[in-house]
């Protein structure tokens, strides 16, 4: 990021924010707003996962489960116990963070591939629990009638209002993450990614750092999940499957390591890929169905090709174009 003049960055950032903020004033298409809300929700998860995978170099294949944990917690508390929305969302976020902490404490002492498998196992365990703990989760039928977000007497029930709420949280997540990576913990994370032994030798508490980053990123996934539950009103186990976890990883990989902008762009692109039919008006039904049918293949292939040919992802590509300089962060 340091290669672009700060002024240009500010202008670009302001332009992007303006575009995102002006959407509800330009359209009242409920479906379109809903899709763009999903984009915002995925962006929140990706902000956390980019910290974990792109900066600290730790892979998680369980973020769909944290997303689900947040969604089910908040949905259950508001429907079964009429807990106020804000409190329920906070509980969902906290539970996801705690889950992340409990998973991370033992497994982050392990090497990369063990962690990947541990988180994958966690995702599968949660998938079974979401189905089997019927008393809380409603089993395969899921939970329905989840109330809209509300604070006191203010009910956020229009698609435009929900859109604004989600994107406001996404903006906060990215600002928070951007601040984090610029400060001491961010430098420590990059050191960790570069060489764990080197970081350790330089006085970085690598295990503590990894656990903290993992918990933060699980919390963001839980927060997004809770927001998701209240913006769609219905959740069921299939929405929190391993496929979603892998898609999230794909977003960060394609977006690039050591960057927040890259993963953000990739999150937007790969989320929209699922909804091409609604975005390109002229697209024939058959073409849209074809793209949807091949969406997983496209994501998977793009992920492989990125690692092989552009290891630094979208971010490195942008950087190279702008500065002509070498690539700084790659998946090593």
């Amino acid at each position, binding site marked *: 990021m340091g290669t672009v003049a700060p002024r240009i960055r500010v202008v670009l950032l302001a332009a992007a924010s303006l575009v995102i903020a002006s959407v509800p004033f330009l359209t009242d298409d409920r479906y379109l707003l809903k899709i763009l809300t999903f984009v915002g929700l995925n962006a929140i998860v990706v902000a956390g996962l980019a910290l974990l995978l792109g900066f600290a170099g730790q892979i998680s294949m369980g973020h769909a489960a944290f997303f689900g944990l947040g969604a089910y917690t908040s949905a259950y508390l508001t429907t079964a116990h009429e807990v106020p929305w804000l409190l329920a969302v906070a509980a969902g976020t906290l539970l996801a963070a705690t889950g992340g902490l409990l998973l991370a404490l033992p497994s982050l002492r392990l090497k990369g591939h063990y962690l990947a498998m541990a988180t994958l196992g966690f995702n599968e365990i949660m998938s079974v629990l979401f189905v089997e703990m019927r008393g809380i989760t409603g089993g395969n039928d899921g939970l329905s009638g989840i109330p809209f977000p509300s604070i006191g007497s203010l009910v956020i029930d229009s698609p435009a209002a929900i859109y604004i709420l989600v994107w406001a949280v996404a903006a906060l997540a990215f600002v928070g993450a951007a601040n984090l990576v610029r400060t001491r913990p961010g430098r420590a994370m990059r050191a960790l990614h570069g060489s764990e032994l080197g970081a350790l030798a330089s006085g970085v508490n690598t295990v503590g750092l990894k656990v903290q980053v993992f918990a933060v990123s699980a919390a963001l996934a839980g927060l997004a999940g809770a927001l998701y539950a209240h913006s769609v009103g219905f959740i069921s186990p299939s929405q929190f499957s391993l496929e979603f976890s892998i898609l999230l990883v794909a977003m960060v990989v394609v977006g690039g390591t050591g960057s927040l902008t890259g993963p953000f762009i990739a999150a937007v692109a790969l989320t929209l890929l699922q909804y091409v039919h609604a975005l390109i008006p002229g697209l024939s039904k058959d073409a849209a169905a074809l793209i949807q049918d091949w969406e997983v293949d496209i994501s*998977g292939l793009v992920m492989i090709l990125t*690692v*092989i040919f552009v290891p630094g992802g979208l971010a490195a590509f942008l950087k190279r174009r702008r500065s002509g300089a070498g690539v700084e962060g790659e998946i090593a």
Partner: protein
Amino acid sequence: MGSAELLQFAVAGLKNGSIYALVALGFTLVFGSTGIINFAQGEFFMLGGMLAVFFVKLGLPLPLAVVAGVLATAVVGLAFERVALRPRRDSGPLALIIITIGGSMVLRSLSRHAFGGNELSLPAFTEGPSIVVAGAAIERQALWVWGLTIVAVAGLSWLYSKTKFGRSMRACSLSHEASRLMGIDTARIVMVSFGLAAVLGALAGVVVAPLTQTSFNVGARIGLKGFAAAILGGLGNPIAAVVGGLALGLVESMSIAFISSTYKDVIALVLLLVVLFVRPEGILGRATREKV
């Protein structure tokens, strides 16, 4: 619970355990020669079953279809290594893990395009009623499962200990650099170990398909179970993979017998996490320190 019933559960456990063992052997083989976990291992299992069904539908006699299914999967395994992994051979584990994750996504999805989203079944290798031993019924297909597992393990042990190729593989698992200096073509070893891992996975997928049916999305969970088995025994050691597989199968079926069938998958996975956390080197493994 009577002894006949208990025996019945033990038979089921050993049957599933053999399948886990075959998948675990695939993990171990690739880990041995490359030091990475192949997240597409479960997809080899899936492809074996699906391709055999496909060849039967083409009109091939069952034995030929089975062999063709296994061989075609081997080709996929070799091609996957050559095309997707070799270009980044010298990168760290994270890049390679991500490539295998992407590979499993693509293989699963391509299989859905090619063979459809339905459950498919393969005829039993030998027709006929189950054999009753001491009150426990054993399906004829289970004998095939055990037979093929024994053949695979024996073949692999022979390859590892008696052939020049096996010695090269073991050398590679110690150090690629040193192996290369000794004149071993490490790239070829890595590619062949992917091919062999694909054969083992496909074999498991083919032989169990008559019992459980198969579909495009069975790979992820069996991959996880096979990995759990490999970890349980101790990653990198073929005998340990078999012990881990059988142990996992028995634990699973005993937990169905005594606890609940609903949570049998959870029990296997919790076991995986516990072993990972408490004793990542496995039951039979020795603790190793990461090389600097």
